[in-house]
């Protein structure tokens, strides 16, 4: 068991190192001199040299990576060209919005995706199942920003129930009632993801219901309701819950588009704006942090899966 934990953690660390090399190298793959691109055409040679030294771009590549990786481990992700502020503090500013948005979105996904998936599985083949599965596929085919714009059109501009853009921190005036700013964005982001969880719940339920012990339970005369809830659902949820981990991590980056539609001050919007401003240290830093988060969540999911289900075996 523990050897698995060590092996899996080692693999995650190796992946992180490889990913960090890619993220580091990427600034060097940009055509032209990144320093000129960052400073613009009117930069003086002195400014160019100063920035090049500041970014350490005059050092050998291997040494540059070493310095960059060591400072990253210490929590120093460099300085934003545009803001002049540390990249980590810029990421921290967007973290509240991004994490809250992802959490509320997860709430909708669980609330709608799982029970409807169970319903579709229980009524497999009926018109309810076909309708729900069709609806799920439709939702998975809808761009989140389109849903977002329609939610704004109907519930913000039309009915005036929710604000259409921005998000003031819950630590500022208004407190928790500021969460209403995140209702429409989280619904837009949840739509395709709830559809995926619905499909996963349904197929996972159907897989488990073919198991021998389910047939035994039915043969013993246990009520269908108890078979579904006690025997099928509990085991089917294992696969579904492990998908929550990946979904949550993916939501942080998927929110890029949603945060742009609703003008939310999250990490995703920071990425897009930094791309348009060519603020490379910020882009590098955000991608590194999100990849880190992604790997940690995947690692935790894999390990907890092993603990939760002793049948799962690993070589």
């Amino acid at each position: 068991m523990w050897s698995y934990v060590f092996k899996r953690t080692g693999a995650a660390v190796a992946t992180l190192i490889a990913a960090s090399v890619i993220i580091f190298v990427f600034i060097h793959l940009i055509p032209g001199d990144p320093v000129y691109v960052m400073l613009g055409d009117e930069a003086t040679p002195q400014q160019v040299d100063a920035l090049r030294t500041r970014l350490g771009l005059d050092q050998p590549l291997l040494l540059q990576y070493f310095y960059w990786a060591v400072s990253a481990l210490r929590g120093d992700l460099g300085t934003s060209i545009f803001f002049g502020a540390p990249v980590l503090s810029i990421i921290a500013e967007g973290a509240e919005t991004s994490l809250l948005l992802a959490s509320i979105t997860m709430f909708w996904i669980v609330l709608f995706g799982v029970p409807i998936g169970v319903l579709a599985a229980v009524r497999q083949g009926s018109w309810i199942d076909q309708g729900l599965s069709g609806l799920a596929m439709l939702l998975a085919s809808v761009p989140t920003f389109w849903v977002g714009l329609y939610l704004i059109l109907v519930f913000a501009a039309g009915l005036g129930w929710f604000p259409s853009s921005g998000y003031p921190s819950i630590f500022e005036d208004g407190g928790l009632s500021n969460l209403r700013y995140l209702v429409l964005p989280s619904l837009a982001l949840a739509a395709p993801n709830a559809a995926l969880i619905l499909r996963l719940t349904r197929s996972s339920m159907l897989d488990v219901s073919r198991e021998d012990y389910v047939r035994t339970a039915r043969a013993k005369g246990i009520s269908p309701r108890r078979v579904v809830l006690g025997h099928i659902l509990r085991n089917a949820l294992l696969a579904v819950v492990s998908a929550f981990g990946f979904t949550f991590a993916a939501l942080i980056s998927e929110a890029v588009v949603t945060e742009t539609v609703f003008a939310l001050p999250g990490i995703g919007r920071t990425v897009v704006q930094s791309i348009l401003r060519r603020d490379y240290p910020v882009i590098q830093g955000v991608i590194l942090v999100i990849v880190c988060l992604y790997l940690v969540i995947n690692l935790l999911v894999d390990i907890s899966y092993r603990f939760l289900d002793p049948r799962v075996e690993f070589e």
Partner: protein
Amino acid sequence: MSGRSARSQGSWLRTWLGPFASRPLASLGLLILLVIIAFAIFAPWIAPYAPEHIEPVDRLDPPGAEHWLGTDHFGRDTFSRIVYGSRLALLIGIGVVAFAMLTGVPIGIVSALFPGAGRVLMRVVDVLMAFPSLLLALGLIVILGQGVFNAILAIGVIYLTTTARIVYGVALRLREESYVEAARSMGAGTVWMIRKHILPNMISPLLVQASFVFAFAQLGAAALDFLGLGAPPDVPSWGNMLAESRIYITRAPWLLLYPGLMIVLTAFSLNLVGDVLRDQMDPRFRELVGNRQRR
């Protein structure tokens, strides 16, 4: 028994089109795709106006007899731009599928047949998969710059990883099949084996994968367009039309409705078709190909 390659073409068609007869919604999907292809091919004859034709007096006209789906803020005809937009949608879809296949298939097959190379190649794929898909595409756009071709590459890399994994999984199983082992023990060359045994059995999983990749490429391209990092703004793409409509949504809601509907219909139809094709697939490989693609 190298699978479908031995059958005649007539029965091949029946195998693939037959199941659509009992699935009316999927048949509708197939029909919608044919309409979009017709739009793309015959755009100059179908569209009543040129996509960039500006009529300043007709700005933000609601749908009517003259402009079926209304006009935008420059007075350009929405219907004509949608018809021309289908060209870009197909180009992106075909481009992304072609890129993902041309890179993912060789990587997957080589990895399965040569375990030494496979350890390295599949590790690289794993590392690429550690990047959330949209972020990976955005990072590539930063390096490559904006544009239609670069958007195809950026989205293509996302599906290179999933395609390589599927091909790897299928090829690993095929390698263990007795007829493949028999061929190998009789001295068959690697290239001959790939051509005769591996690739023909790969057709159906790849066809399913292609339809899902095509669908999700539409959503990815639309997202890039919307962020202003995809096709240049003067190109009539559905994503660009939505991005432009943003500030007029209360005054001109038709600008939001129709281009978005086209994206949804295209992606939905492809998903429906992919689902039917997957049900037709060899059950041993079905679990490897899902439409829970990376988004």
